[in-house]
């Protein structure tokens, strides 16, 4: 049923009275010219109304805790509840970021230990936890590449090479760092087109941004060759950690030859996605880039933990936020990493890969077209519904919407851009084989429904709180806030 806007539930003068001081303080010392004239437009509701409204709204979401969520490239695996409750212990929650290091040794020890574990599992020299999301990690990485060239006076390097299948953040980041983007194609076998790469690499190359396994779900087999090629040309290699879950503990980006890597802790280290963040985009740094590590970073000296700043890293690219990063997210990642431990990390990669290959095999057996069927799936894989679109008139988007009705969150659709009518499917290691089988059955059911009545599938979803939304209207007749109308 429709849920009113919180504003429409309100009545003038109402608020949750247990939550504010009983009296209005005297503000007469602030001259009137600085004072607000009219109250802000705000909800005016009781505590029960708030609790009920947001509890009911929450039930309108799919989430890992309620549904299988095989969203390719997003690693929607189980977020252990202990990571939440232990990160929210009062000793951590109430600590002011400017409080001296001496009073936060427990907190800093967790971050230090996390840095060490991440460096080990990625094969990098050091780790900074400062970036607050994957995209900020990317930014930091490319900014470090730039700082490296700048520091050497090597200022003719104007290009960053990016595969055409890359995440949108890659080219956007390169531009933020003042680089031009040089796109290279993906070969038919799913790997980077080496000929195109060789042609692209040169003295103008600042670096290359790669995801490995790549966004088409396969391991880049010639990665060592690529690393040598780029390094010999004087460029550096940036590793986009979006797909790190696929190889955690099995293969290390540092060993592949990467100079810098970001790790989406909200993917591989299972911190919550939170409906769009907060994430954390820790940066792993190789030998060449060590002097440019972003600040702050946790150091250890004589058993005491402390924040390292520009004093310790004078050539740092600098600070990325007002404080030290998404500390609470980092604590969650730390708890998760400790529960996994050495063997557990490796198993993440193994079972994420097993689940993906099993699901790919099953879908293929049911007649769906797997992209790159000759390759091993990494932790994700692609099917193309081009055939279904042509023969039955239902698109990948239609399948995606109908899956919602059947209780499955849709896989990522229409990404990567180079595969027509594609679904990028990432089951993750925390799902059971029975749930994978259920997903296969749902896909088969939808195809059968489409054969019977394509318009039925095209009309999906039917069982969600709303049916398909008018996105054109949303973008053209912008309605971005409540304007005081009645509900």
């Amino acid at each position, binding site marked *: 049923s429709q*849920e009113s806007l919180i504003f429409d539930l309100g009545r003038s003068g109402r608020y949750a009275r247990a*939550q*504010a001081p009983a009296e209005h*303080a005297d*503000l007469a010392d602030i001259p009137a010219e*600085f*004072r*607000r*004239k009219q109250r802000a*437009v705000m909800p005016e509701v009781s505590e029960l109304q708030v609790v009920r409204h947001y509890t009911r*709204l*929450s039930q309108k979401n*799919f*989430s890992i*805790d309620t549904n299988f969520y095989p969203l390719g490239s997003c690693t929607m695996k189980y*977020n*252990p509840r*202990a990571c939440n409750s232990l990160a929210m*212990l009062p*000793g951590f*929650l*109430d600590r002011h*970021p*400017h409080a001296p290091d*001496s009073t936060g040794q*427990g907190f800093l020890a967790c971050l230090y230990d996390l840095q*060490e574990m991440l460096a080990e599992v990625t094969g990098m020299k050091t780790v900074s936890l400062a970036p*607050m*999301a994957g995209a900020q990690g990317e930014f930091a990485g490319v900014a470090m590449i730039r700082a490296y060239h700048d520091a050497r006076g090597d200022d003719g390097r104007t290009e960053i090479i990016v595969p055409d299948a890359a995440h949108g953040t890659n080219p956007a980041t390169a*531009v933020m760092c003042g680089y031009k983007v040089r796109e290279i194609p993906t070969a038919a076998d799913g790997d980077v087109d080496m000929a195109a790469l060789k042609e692209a690499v040169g003295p103008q190359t600042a670096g290359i941004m790669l995801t490995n396994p790549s966004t088409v779900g396969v*391991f880049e*087999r010639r*990665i060592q060759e690529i690393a040598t090629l780029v390094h010999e040309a004087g460029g550096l290699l940036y590793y986009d950690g979006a797909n790190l879950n696929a190889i955690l*503990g*099995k293969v*290390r980006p540092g060993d592949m030859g990467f100079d810098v890597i970001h790790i989406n802790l909200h993917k591989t280290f299972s911190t*919550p*996605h*939170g409906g*769009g*963040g*907060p994430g954390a985009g820790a940066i792993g740094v190789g030998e060449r880039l060590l002097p440019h590590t972003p600040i702050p970073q946790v150091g250890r000296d004589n058993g005491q933990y402390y924040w390292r700043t520009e004093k310790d890293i004078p050539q740092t690219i600098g600070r990325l*936020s*007002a404080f030290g990063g998404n500390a609470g997210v980092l604590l969650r990642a730390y708890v998760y990493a400790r*529960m*996994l431990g050495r063997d557990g*990390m*490796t198993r993440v990669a*193994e079972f994420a890969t*097993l689940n993906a290959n*099993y699901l790919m*095999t099953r879908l293929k057996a049911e007649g769906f077209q797997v992209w790159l069927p000759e390759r091993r799936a990494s932790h994700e894989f692609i099917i193309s519904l081009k055939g279904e679109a042509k023969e039955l008139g239902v698109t990948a988007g239609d399948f995606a919407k109908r899956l919602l009705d059947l209780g499955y969150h*849709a896989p990522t659709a229409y990404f990567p851009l180079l595969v027509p009518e594609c679904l990028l499917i990432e089951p993750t290691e925390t799902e*059971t084989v029975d749930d994978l089988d259920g997903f296969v059955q749902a896909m088969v059911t939808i195809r059968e429904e489409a054969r019977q009545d394509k318009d039925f599938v095209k009309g999906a979803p039917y069982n969600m709180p709303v049916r398909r*939304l008018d996105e054109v*209207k949303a973008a053209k007749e*912008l*309605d*971005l*806030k409540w304007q005081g109308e009645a509900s």
Partner: protein
Amino acid sequence: MPFIPHTDEDIRRMLAEVGVDSINALFDEVPSDLIDPGLPGIPEGVSEMEIAREMNERAAGDMLGPCFLGAGAYRHHVPAAVWEITTRGEYYSAYTPYQAEASQGTLQLIYEYQSMMSGLMGMDASNASLYDGGSALAEAVLMAVRANRKSKSGRILVPDTVNPMYCDATRTIVGNQGISLETVASNADTGAVDVETLKQWDGEDIAALVIQQPNWFGRLEEAQALTDWAQRNGALVIAVVNPTAMAVLTPPGEWGENGADIACGEGQPLGIPLSSGGPYFGFMCCRKAHVRQMPGRIVGRTVDLEGRTGYTLTLQAREQHIRRNKATSNICTNQGLMVTAATIYLSLLGAEGLERVAGQCHANTRKLTERLADIKGVSLRFDGPYFHERVIELDRPAEPVFQQLASQGVLAGYPLGRHDKRLGNALLVCATETVTDADIDRFVDALSHALAKAA
């Protein structure tokens, strides 16, 4: 195998289906010299019970007494309902709401958040959050440069009364895009910007002026006059504000004749625990004219096939996943869960509650600083109106005093000398609504004792 559900039988069945003998065979495309590096530096896994014990011990070791530190992060009361609801699995473990039909909870909540933030700021539109206050200023600078089509200079005026950590972060982030941040010196007696000072830029091509209200020293800037100066000179105005303060102070949308162009800042005061520095969230609002230049997610209200109200991400053509190297920003994941908390916080407090909170913070800070000023060796540093944070001047360097009081369990404010040697004796102090009279007594006593000894 923590969190992995596979039984031996499951594994056998799955491997048979795939047609391989072992899981390792699935990694046969990885060059053999790279595979299975061993991870001697990573300890064995522990059970939830064991890590819980360790975390409890570590957290307990970090506990501390009264907090008079602000400087960009504020200890406010966070209603229990906020996080009990925010951490519900349906919010906590959901992805960015790309599949609108399966994400109406998060989408409606963001629409409500946008409405609240627009209302609080007096602005036309809000996005769905940025990382934090510091990076929000960086994004605002980039946005202003894009949005101010008349300006080609990329020059941004930034008073030295803006949070220095925000300036640092902004420099890091915008540094490679031909943008220059030029410092505007404040009046050393008032700790605020004189409009007169800006006259030196009269007639120059300036993309934007940044105004922080209350400013880094807790002082109130002449936001009206500064805004009018900037806009008359063709510059946009970027407001950096404390959202709690906006319950009682003139909001950016009402600054000067036309209002600020962009309002941004740190959302932490709105229901987010201090949490050692994060996660917080940056907010950003703007005038209607600039909406398409705003970075980050934006939710719009629309209708579904049956005409029912629904909510969806909109204006996605600005974003990196569509526009790639032409995007307004590379931001993808933002701080969704923090926005959830802030939305619940603002709903509980409403305008009335937030006014009371803001008022109490200010009254407590006034009381605190009046008490502190009575101590021998302490004076108030800047003249003029302030809000909820204030600078005191000691008769000796502040940093050692700060460290000494911290060891006694009192966080005595922020030593401003860390950013400006001229303020080496100054502490920026703050007393929010959580501070009691007993806390103030404790601070006054501790500081009195510390200063009683010869410097």
